[in-house]
Every structure is written in structure tokens, then in C-alpha cells.
């Protein structure tokens, strides 16, 4: 994925290539920390949920929209696939990566906007940060994921602009890609854990 082999002069031993770009290693370490953050939150949510007596969500609290969020989940997963397509195209012909990358960003933006609309509806129905532990955990976990998605989208947009201007450094693209895959890969776990 990241290999870039260099030709070497005759008689000179080939120089050992860098295994991974520094940007990717840094991003992987950062993502590991983020994984632990979300694992802690999911664990706390699981403990609170199993210790609650009676039904979950607590009585008087609205049910989370499963079907609508399933569509949103599909959009986010498709965004991840399109980013992969963009990366493959970038390796062969960088100019051809622009379109799948843009679609990936648009689908990610759709996900965030759709979630915003969902939140407005839920707040209207009485699910707030202080209405119950259900509401607190929902906004904390899902909100933190949304924050990650927004940051990743801003960086992806920057990557796209650099790509269109033919100024994109591959390591920037690869590092951002790792972060977006984390955002995409985490979401189905949150959906299964928090929504179902």
C-alpha cells in the first residue's frame, strides 16, 4: 500500500525503504489511543445498561431511530469504500482519485448532517444530555464520534483541494485515510451497541 521503491546505482547496495511513512505510524498510534477511549466509553455504557432495572431505554425516554440510522450507516460504509477506491486510483493516476474522494467526502457529510437532524428530533422528543443516563451516554458516545467525523471530513476536504491543485503529498493522504477508516470502522460497533 505504501511501498515506493527507488532505483539504485550499480554496485551500491539497495537502501532499505521505510516500512511505513511517519504520518501513518503517528496516525496509527493516535487511532489506538482513540480506540481505547471509545472502548472505555462503550464499557461504561454496557455496565450502566446492564445494571438498570427494567426496560432499556428507561421509561419515558424516546426510542432511537434504528431504520433511519441503518441508512446512514450504509452511507458511511460506502464513503469508506469510495475512499479505498480513491486511494487505489491515486496510486495509478492521481488525477483520477479526485471524483471518488469527493463522493467519499459528500457521503461523510451526509452522515453528519443526517445525524444532526436526528439529534434535533430526539431533543424535541425529550432525550437530552440530562434527561437520563441513556441520554447522557447517547450524546457523549455518538457526539464524540460525530466530532471525529467532522474533523476527519475537514482534513479530507483539505486533502481533496490539494489533490485538485496537484499539490498532494501521498503521506498526508495515507494518514488521513487511516483516520477516516477508524471513523467508518467504529460506527457499526457503536450502532450495534448503542442503538440496538
Amino acid at each position, binding site marked *: 500500500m505504501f511501498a515506493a521503491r527507488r532505483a539504485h546505482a550499480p554496485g551500491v547496495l539497495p537502501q532499505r525503504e521505510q516500512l511505513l511513512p511517519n504520518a501513518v505510524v503517528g496516525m496509527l498510534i493516535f487511532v489506538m489511543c482513540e480506540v481505547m477511549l471509545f*472502548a472505555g466509553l462503550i*464499557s461504561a455504557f*454496557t455496565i450502566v*445498561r*446492564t445494571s438498570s432495572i427494567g426496560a432499556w431505554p428507561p421509561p419515558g425516554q424516546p426510542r432511537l431511530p434504528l431504520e433511519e440510522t441503518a441508512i446512514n450507516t450504509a452511507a458511511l460504509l460506502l464513503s469508506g469504500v469510495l475512499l479505498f477506491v480513491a486511494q487505489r486510483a491515486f496510486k495509478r493516476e492521481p488525477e483520477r482519485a479526485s471524483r471518488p474522494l469527493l463522493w467519499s467526502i459528500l457521503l461523510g457529510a451526509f452522515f453528519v448532517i443526517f445525524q444532526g437532524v436526528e439529534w434535533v428530533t430526539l431533543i424535541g422528543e425529550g432525550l437530552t444530555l440530562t434527561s437520563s443516563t441513556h441520554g447522557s451516554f447517547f450524546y457523549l458516545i455518538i457526539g464524540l464520534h460525530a466530532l471525529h467525523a467532522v474533523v476527519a471530513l475537514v482534513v479530507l476536504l483539505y486533502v481533496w483541494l490539494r489533490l485538485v491543485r496537484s499539490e498532494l503529498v501521498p503521506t498526508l493522504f495515507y494518514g488521513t485515510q487511516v483516520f477516516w477508516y477508524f471513523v467508518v470502522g467504529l460506527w457499526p460497533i457503536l450502532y450495534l451497541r448503542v442503538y440496538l
Partner: protein
Amino acid sequence: MRAYAKRWIPGVVLMLGVLAPQISEACAVCFSGRDENRLAFILTTILLTALPLIMIGGMLLWLRRRSVRQQLLMRDEPARLGR
């Protein structure tokens, strides 16, 4: 006699307690009598313990595989180039 008994009573109670062990829910946060909750504690403890090890181990293994593959490529390169 009463002072002598007072000294021994706590010891006898402690011994009886040891002989009849029961689950003591001293910390409501860390333990619950509900099976579902207890299972959740065990599973999340396993998750939080194993996850960093799996991630770091997985990354090191992946890097090792990449390194071995790169070394093989470098070893074969002179032969491939006809030197």
C-alpha cells in the same frame, strides 16, 4: 469474666464469618448481584485488558511481515536485474 468475653467475641464472630462465606456486595459500583451485570463486568474487563495488547501486538506483527517481505525483495533484486 465479662472483660475476658468481650475480648474473644470479635474473634469468634470473625471465625464464624470465615466458616460461612457469602457474597459481600460492599461496592455497589464494582459489583452487582445480577448475572447480566456481572457478565458485563467480566467481558468489559477482558476487552479493556486485551485490546491494547491485541492492537500493539497486531501492529508489530504487521510491521514484521512487511519487513520480511521487504528484505526478500531486496535480496532478490540483484538477481532480477541480472547482476
